[in-house]
């Protein structure tokens, strides 16, 4: 019995104030990363974004993705540009705020994969930057970092008490 208790104490992850500060720092810095990247995507032409997106065709990572970019995304860059701006702005806003953090970490992973598929084989790109970006979101998802100094931590008790669909979604997303 005592050996079992010792084992569980050995396995238990730390959850002290230092860990909470570290998780909040990780989440906020990741949010700031998205917030800083939303600035250079200027509508309505999205010229710079088009250049980077075009790398998926010039230096393909995955052939079907290159085809999708060439035939669907680039001809409609106005629409996809706005989707990108809104998604990245929401990622920045809600990761900093710590609201529905696990859901936004998943969205961040999806966005990182999309970006990586466009630029990973382009010259002068450092591929590890994108692997690290993906890892940041995995860490946020795994640790539910919004519960440390975030809106999730403050509002979760109220969501847990409520039986509405939105509250149930937010419990899962936080």
């Amino acid at each position: 019995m005592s050996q079992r208790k010792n084992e569980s104490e050995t396995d238990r992850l730390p959850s002290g104030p230092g860990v909470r500060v570290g998780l909040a720092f990780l989440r906020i810095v990741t949010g700031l990363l998205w917030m800083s990247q939303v600035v250079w995507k200027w509508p309505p032409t999205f010229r710079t974004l088009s250049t980077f997106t075009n790398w998926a065709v010039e230096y393909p990572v995955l052939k079907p993705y290159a085809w999708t970019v060439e035939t669907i995304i680039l001809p409609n860059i106005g629409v996809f540009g706005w989707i990108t701006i809104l998604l990245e702005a929401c990622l920045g806003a809600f990761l900093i705020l710590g609201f529905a953090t696990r859901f936004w970490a998943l969205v961040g992973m999806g966005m990182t994969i999309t970006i990586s598929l466009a630029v990973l084989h382009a010259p002068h790109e450092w591929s590890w930057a994108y692997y690290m970006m993906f890892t940041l979101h995995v860490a946020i998802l795994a640790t539910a970092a919004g519960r440390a100094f975030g809106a999730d931590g403050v509002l979760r008790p109220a969501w847990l008490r409520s039986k509405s669909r939105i509250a149930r979604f937010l419990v899962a997303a936080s």
Partner: protein
Amino acid sequence: MVLGIVALVVGLSVVLTTLDTPFLAVNDEDVRLLRIVHLNTFGGILLTIVGVLALAGGRRRQEGSAVVAGGMASLMALWALVGLNTPINYMSARADTFTLFLMLSVGLLLFTLTPDPDN
């Protein structure tokens, strides 16, 4: 306390994001823009004062200031989003400004909708 501080932060953010806009119009297009920006600056200063007053008041006064701050933040987010689609390149019409005010307006909305734990 927190709601009063947030109102203060929103007020100061509004003022800061309008600081890089020229005070006087250069051409006709700027006149329309400046009317809105000056209105934003005025609203931001007013909100900063409301935030300071709310800090000295009770929860009700703080909740009132939070609602005003939330409304102002939503308007600023909307203005930044609309401004993005124009040739205007001032701080009040940028995507990161939109992100900032989206965060503040959703944050304020969430906290004002959450029931007071004391009741």
